[in-house]
């Protein structure tokens, strides 16, 4: 078997184990008090963390474009519009800086 197939097999088994492992873990945790609050806070925290990791590796153009996208998102609450505004902003800013 080639290297590529080994990588595909390994990533398939590893990733699926993590996905299923989360389910097993979640099913075993108590469904009261602090755990419920933690799980309800999780989506926002995880997305905030993802954004932090992405943005610290970017530059001024991306930070300004992200601020523009944030403003559009807060004003419109519209996902497609926010995406279009952010992508257009980053294209313009990268050319001009």
């Amino acid at each position, binding site marked *: 078997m080639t290297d590529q197939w080994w990588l595909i097999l390994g990533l398939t088994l590893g990733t*699926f184990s993590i996905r299923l492992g989360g389910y097993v873990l979640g099913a075993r945790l108590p469904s009261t008090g602090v755990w419920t609050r933690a799980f309800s806070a999780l989506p926002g925290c995880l997305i905030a963390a993802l954004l932090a990791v992405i943005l610290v590796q970017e530059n001024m153009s991306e930070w300004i474009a992200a601020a523009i996208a944030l403003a559009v998102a807060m004003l419109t609450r519209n996902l497609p519009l926010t995406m279009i505004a952010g992508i257009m902003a980053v294209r313009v800013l990268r050319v001009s800086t």
Partner: protein
Amino acid sequence: MFDMQMESPVATVESLGRLSPWQEFRAGFLDIIPLAFGAAFYGAAFGLLAAQAGMGEMQTSVMGAFVFAGSSQIVGVERLVSGASVIAALMAGLALNPRILLMTASLRDDLKGRPVWQILLGVHLTSDENWALMHATRAKGHAVGYWYLVGGGALLLSVWVAATVFGVSFSKLLPAPRSIGMDFAFTVAFIAILCNLWRGTGDLLPWMVSLGCAGTLALLVPIEAS
């Protein structure tokens, strides 16, 4: 969905209360379309990389359908292209995935009491995009759950596989995502989703701690953005 003026599957049946599984699947499938565009560009970019790694259409489509984790696939194959061993490439790719553990753990109420095949299908189709979108849609007061997630995942997986195969087949004809700003698509999508997840000032502290820790770690330890 994010624009109440738009024809929204959830909004139109909202008055009827809880959606049927099919209506929920359809709503998830349609609502994820803007994010699927982002996935298409990333898929095509992954295809370019896969071509450099000597992978064909068969390997690329099998990988997309069975791994279905874009950042892992990109990092793993990139390592292989740059001459790393299979084990090193595998470790680098898998290192990006522990967050999925938290995501599927948080689905426990949606998966509770479901048949095994639905649990296996649900966890496999869980990705950043449809998981976050499901929570953002809920935060707006719509009662969506398992089938909404699966609907979004089904479209994302189909688009991802099609785009990666397209990328590997036409690797010489495609522009790099960065050159047209498409590398920024998911960043802005996450900003929009985060706005919809905002429940009030009580969210500020946990979000800031999360943002600060992740940002600091990313600065100190060289890791790939996922």
